[in-house]
């Protein structure tokens, strides 16, 4: 009954989980040399010499302009409402023995949202979409020898989604009802990693994080709730498909004080085939095809050390998982280019700070013949700033 489109997409996968890695475009799986290895490659924990805590947050400011709907011959510009998102990351790394390390992390690998004016042209598709996930990941890593380490973690996942859109048709003069859908649930997942140091200067890393299906429950609220429409107010359920992802990276040190890394990240979005929400009140359901495709991200980054200061930079290319037919204002995704810069500074023997900036440019995307029949052109960018503090002991 409702033209709901779910949220998850390239745009709702967050890949920024620490300012140090982010400044290098997330090309980090082959090194994973701080506690954020819990996310990037748990095997990296095993090579870390000092125990550490690493805490930070990313400020994300996306901007989206829509020109259309072109299927109605309009090229009117509508801008998404400005929002700031602040996903967090917090990690601990502790060496139980020299070879066996324990890690723990809390982070948000899927999130973000979009919000449009309640009276805008696409309000029957989306007024607001908001997604949050929290991953809690106890992790162990083992150093097999001086070249090889492995790691494994359990992900305790809690996630929630809120969707708002206009539904239903009403007679002249009446206010169309708005539906607010809220779904949340929990599940488990796992991740594994391998790190292999070919030599002093070259290393290889790979990690895999399982997908997870969150069986969400929640409520649908209609405002106003016209009795005559017999709207299925109340309990709902539906599944949130979180895709699996894998990293493979090679790093090398071509000269003293310089490290560079290239990573390939694979994201198993094909698991996201449809969104189905079931309404308990009248046993009805709505099924919307999504048909996302598996996709990849290429990451190139590096770090140059000058004593206490480290200068970092990188570039990433994120290939959109959303087929053109399924691009809509909930997630106006397209291929993205990201340029990253940042630095780290050793404040004292135990304390470091890291800062990163990422300019993410979503390539201009003109869509026609969309599933929702809401065509047009999307221009989107995002500015991301991250700050982390590390403490070692």
């Amino acid at each position, binding site marked *: 009954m409702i033209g709901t489109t779910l949220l998850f997409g390239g745009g709702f996968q967050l890949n920024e989980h620490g300012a140090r890695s982010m400044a290098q475009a997330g090309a980090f799986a082959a090194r994973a040399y701080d506690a954020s290895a819990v996310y990037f490659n748990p095997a990296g924990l095993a090579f870390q010499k000092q125990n550490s805590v690493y805490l930070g947050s990313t400020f994300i400011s996306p901007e989206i302009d829509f020109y259309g709907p072109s299927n109605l011959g309009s090229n009117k510009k509508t801008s998404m409402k400005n929002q700031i998102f602040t996903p967090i990351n917090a990690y601990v790394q502790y060496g139980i023995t020299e070879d066996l390390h324990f890690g723990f992390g809390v982070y948000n690998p899927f999130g973000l949202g979009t919000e449009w004016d309640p009276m805008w042209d696409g309000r029957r598709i989306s007024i607001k979409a908001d997604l949050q996930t929290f991953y809690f990941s106890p992790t162990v890593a083992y150093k097999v020898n001086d070249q090889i380490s492995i790691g494994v973690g359990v992900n305790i996942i809690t996630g929630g989604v809120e969707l708002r859109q206009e539904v239903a048709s009403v*007679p002249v003069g009446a206010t169309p009802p708005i539906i607010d859908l809220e779904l949340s649930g929990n599940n488990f997942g796992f991740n594994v990693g391998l790190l292999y140091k070919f030599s002093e200067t070259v290393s290889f890393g790979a990690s895999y994080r399982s997908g997870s299906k969150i069986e969400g429950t929640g409520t649908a609220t209609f405002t106003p709730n016209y009795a005559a429409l*017999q*709207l299925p107010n109340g309990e709902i359920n539906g599944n949130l498909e979180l895709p699996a992802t894998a990293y493979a990276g090679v790093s090398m040190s071509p000269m003293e004080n310089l490290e560079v890394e290239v990573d390939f990240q694979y994201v198993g979005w094909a698991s996201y085939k449809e969104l189905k929400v079931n309404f308990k009140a009248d046993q009805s359901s709505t099924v919307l095809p999504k048909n996302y495709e598996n996709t990849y991200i290429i990451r190139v980054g590096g770090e140059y050390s000058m004593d206490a*200061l480290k200068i970092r930079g990188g570039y990433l290319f994120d290939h959109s998982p959303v087929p053109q037919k399924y691009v809509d204002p909930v997630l106006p995704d397209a291929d993205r280019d990201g*340029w990253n810069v940042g630095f780290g500074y050793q404040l004292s023997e135990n304390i470091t700070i890291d800062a990163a900036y990422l300019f993410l*440019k979503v390539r*201009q995307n003109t869509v026609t013949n969309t599933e929702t*029949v809401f065509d*047009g052109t999307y221009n989107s960018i995002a500015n991301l700033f991250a700050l982390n503090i590390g403490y070692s002991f």
Partner: protein
Amino acid sequence: MKNYFGVLLLITFFLVGCKDDAPSGIPGPGLGGVTVNKYISIGNSLTAGYQAGGLYEDGQIYSFPNLIAQQLKIAGAPLGKFEQPIWGNPGSPDISGKTARLEILAWPASGPVIGSSGATAGVATNSNLPRPYDNLGIPFAYISDFLDTADFVVKSVPLPKIFFLHVLRNKSYGNSVFDQARKVTPKADIVTFWLGNNDVLIFAIYGGTAVIGNTVIPTAPTPSATFAIQYGQAFDSLRSAFPNAKIIVGNIPDVRAIPHFTTVGPAVAASLEGAFAISYQKHGTTGAGDASSYLTEANAPLLPLGAGAYVAKIGQPSGQWYKDNSITLPAGIDTTQMFGLDYRNPIPDALILDSLEIAMAGAAVTSFNQTIVTVTAAKGAALVDIYSIFNGIKKNGLKIGGETFTADYLAGGLFSLDGIHPSSKGAGIVANEFIKTMNSKFGMNVPQVDISRLPGIPAPLGKYIVNSKSGLKRSYDSMQPFLKQ
């Protein structure tokens, strides 16, 4: 270290805010060099904005010609107000002077109760306009009425014909639709012309019958040859009066595919179990059914919405339909027998399109549309293939901007409560088809109507949309008998 910060800041400022410019290649609204100083619409109830069994202001505002006029203005046409023969809410009267407009009066668990609110009918609010209307759509008009210069005041006496008087009003503006169209100034440079539907539709709506006094007589669609001559004449006159105008013509949708016919029949068929069969009167007969006039589960009949109230009486000794319509009981009918199940008390011809009538209607639609294609091609008019568009929606539904439309009654959203005329949103969809044709044929760039901003029917969602078939099945039996002549 300060130097590095400087570099970082520079890079940052360079990157922040460099979003792409507005896309090129999406042209804004425009008329593409076409002069549009006046637009007029000629047609029947579909043009008038007649909805839900009546003509009323809240429906007329969303007539497809008025929607087109508003879009032409957005595209830059210097049109003034598009003047329509507004019938103030709650609209035109039924035979008792109450509003004829159908509304959902209640929606108990058993299904919707649809009928007139019983309020006193409205009055015309724009009848003092000192010139002919821009919208010359007249409900119940046949193609012949386009040229008919007979006295429309006299013609307007039987109830459905009151619309001739309502629209044409004043003989000083002309005696026919055509006369009045010619007198609109400035001279129209865009004309939409959508006539011919009633030449087959009215036959079908009344089950191939008409009630004359206390008896029922069989009817037929306008003969194909007659239609071809009349349509050709009408179009010749139109073209000679507007030699340079852009004329856009709609053809005739398949009357068999509208929810007026496809709602009750399948529900009845689904309720028939195996051996049960329903007796009906064949086209042109008034007496008992015979051995070959039975409906079975496999033979899903086309029953008009008005039959809904009577199929609920199937199996009971009932002469309700004859009573309601003041029909003298014809020879061979015995209303003490079980209605519909006994051949001596069959479903009356008026409440069913039997196989012969379905074939007659189908042949008429096909033939009329052939005439329309031939005539419009010869006379340089653009054709909107409403027939194929509606059949496409019936088959596949129509999605637009997050809304889905189907040809289902109530829940489908395309048709108004009478199951015949488009809803306001349906009118928007029709307007957009005309606009698309204008744009492609004449190189215009008129923006389409935003369907999401048009009012809809407050049909319950949930079950009725997800599984409209079962929703309708459970609701047919409480529908009020409407669309009585």
